[in-house]
């Protein structure tokens, strides 16, 4: 039982990290960024490229090396996210939302098969593998790398939350989410804020990619697809556009999967998860923390 809880929370924290990017972008420009899962994949490959170009890393240095790579990857994948926004999304600002959705799918294709063309379709083994002691906590087997990764994930989420709540850029983001035209009139540089949003969301996804690579050890060019769908689901469960909701939704989704698989068997897990999602949304149509918005006419 506690093992299931822990497994669910651990997987859920990955979902949450990716769901955050989904939710931030959606909150601000109402775009379902389908290429977001692929930024996670790209992050893993960037980390892979950097680590393998360095050569053999002594085991004692691996955590430090990984942290440095994590930071660099965040910057690079953030930059790529911004680039995608410039090329594929910004020209369509103000167009029907579905049009942007299509360019997002196009960007997703381009990233997936671009990486496949460059790095080959075979899965790669990550050069650094996090390994460590396992402990017994309340009957659950917990390993040191899991704790490290959870701590990093939680730190990233907390700092994001305070960034959004405390800084002027965060306030600008919230303002645009509330009323883009109004914020523009109030002198907010909307383009700059959107750029930042993409940067942060993509950087978080890239970080999740490196962490997944280092923990699970295997990366491939389609690794972002399923987790992207899951993160989207998590973002919706939490109430899309809501940052805390995305974190909560990610954790909840992880738990749902862990228990669903236990109760019904692995082949029915996703059926169970989606059925719960649908039942839940019919009862609470705005997600966990989403607010009911009075429709303005």
């Amino acid at each position, binding site marked *: 039982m506690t*093992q*299931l809880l822990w*497994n669910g929370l*651990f*997987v859920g924290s*990955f979902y949450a990290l990716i769901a955050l990017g989904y939710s931030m972008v959606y909150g601000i420009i109402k775009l379902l960024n389908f290429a977001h899962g692929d930024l996670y994949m790209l992050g893993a490959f960037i980390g892979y490229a950097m680590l393998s170009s360095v050569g053999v890393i002594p085991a004692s240095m691996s955590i430090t090396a990984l942290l440095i790579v994590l930071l660099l990857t965040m910057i690079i994948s953030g930059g790529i996210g911004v680039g995608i926004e410039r090329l594929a999304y910004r020209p369509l600002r103000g167009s029907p939302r579905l049009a942007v959705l299509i360019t997002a799918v196009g960007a997703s294709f381009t990233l997936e*098969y671009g990486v*496949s063309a460059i790095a*080959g*379709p*075979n*899965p790669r*083994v990550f050069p650094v*593998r996090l*390994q460590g002691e*396992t402990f017994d906590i309340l009957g659950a*087997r917990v*390993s040191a790398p899991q704790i490290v990764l959870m701590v990093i994930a939680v730190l990233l989420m907390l700092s994001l939350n305070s960034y959004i709540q405390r800084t002027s850029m965060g306030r600008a983001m919230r303002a645009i989410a509330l009323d883009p035209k109004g914020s523009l009139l109030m002198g907010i540089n909307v383009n700059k804020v959107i750029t930042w949003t993409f940067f942060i969301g993509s950087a978080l996804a890239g970080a999740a990619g490196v962490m*997944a690579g280092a923990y*699970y*050890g*295997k990366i*491939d060019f*389609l*690794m972002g*697809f*399923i*987790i992207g769908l899951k993160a989207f689901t998590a973002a919706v469960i939490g109430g899309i556009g809501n940052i805390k909701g995305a974190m909560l939704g990610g954790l909840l989704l992880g738990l749902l*999967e*862990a228990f669903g*698989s*236990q109760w019904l*068997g*692995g*082949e029915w*897990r*996703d059926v169970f998860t989606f059925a719960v999602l649908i039942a839940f949304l019919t009862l609470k149509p705005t997600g966990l923390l989403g607010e009911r918005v009075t429709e303005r006419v």
Partner: protein
Amino acid sequence: MKLRIPKVLAVGAVAAALMATTGCGGILSGGDENASGDSGPIKIAAVIPLSGSSAPTGTYMKNGMQMAIDEINAKGGVLGRQLQFDPEDEACDPTQAAAAANKAVSNGAVVSVGGYCSGATLPTLPIFAKANIPMIIPAANSQELVNQKLPNVFLINGTGAQQSAAAVKFMAKDGVKSVALVDDNTSYSKDIAAQTKKDLEAAGGIKVALATSVTAGESDYSSVVHDITGANPDMVYWTGYYQEGGLIINQLKAAGFKGKIMVADGSVDASLIEIAGGTSAEGVFATMTQTPDTIKGAETWIADYTKKFGSAPGPYSTQSYDAVRLAAEAITKADSTDGDKIIAALAAIDGFELFSGPLKFTPEHTLSSGGFQILVVKDGKFTLHDDLS
């Protein structure tokens, strides 16, 4: 109103231009339909996944085939003609597979040597059958392919039933009392798992403690690992591919699983050991037909392959290589590129040396002996453990 007629014409012209591109595609690809005639190169087609999640294996297969084609051509080809290789991507998608097979037929294929995803291979059978083109299927081995009873279809991979028989035999021999069967919910994998379950229940004595599936393409398999450790079987039999297999082995070991692990032939790949990490895969058993690794004297083949493609051979490289060689052999024996004659020659082949041993087809056109053996991972390599004879 005056404009009406030109309007319609103009629309017609625009749309015809659009359609003409379609036409061009068709005409271009159908341009040399007489290639199967008596001159020019002999076309060998392969409908295999070169994009999508099965692209890695498809690439291994393509390389194996290319190698055989180049070798045969270097020796002067077949019937004094060169072989021409025509790989078509199907992305494991039945719709694309049907299109690809039709394209291969239109291109004048003489023999088809493709077939990896069983679900995508099935719709290609009637297309090749109608054109009377022999199919040598190197990898796909779902029982459904055999059940169609088509005369032009030959399977040179052991079937699911043969593999599960070998697995059950080894489990009994090894004194295993309870087994967990894990598949990846694809037809290949589920076929073996279901057959193994049936065989075990028929034989009695060994309990199936757990039979479950995972979703391929994910990274975290902690939930299935939790189910396995909960059921605590003596042995886990994983019937999926190496990408997920490596992760599951790693996560099982990390969760403190002490039982034995066995994998099916789709997981027999050096990457499995790498993905499992460190020494996690040591002692993992595998049901597998003969591979270059277990055949004496195959080192040169591996070296040639690695030199040519810059990476070591992977799953089904050898079967694909053999499929092309077999096709060449059958064309030589038939002394013709006529479909019926090649099919007759294939059915009559006896003792042609493949990696999996001397070949003879059963009346159902499957391998008369699956040739499955048990391998074990030792010092980071798959080595022969028990040939089950």
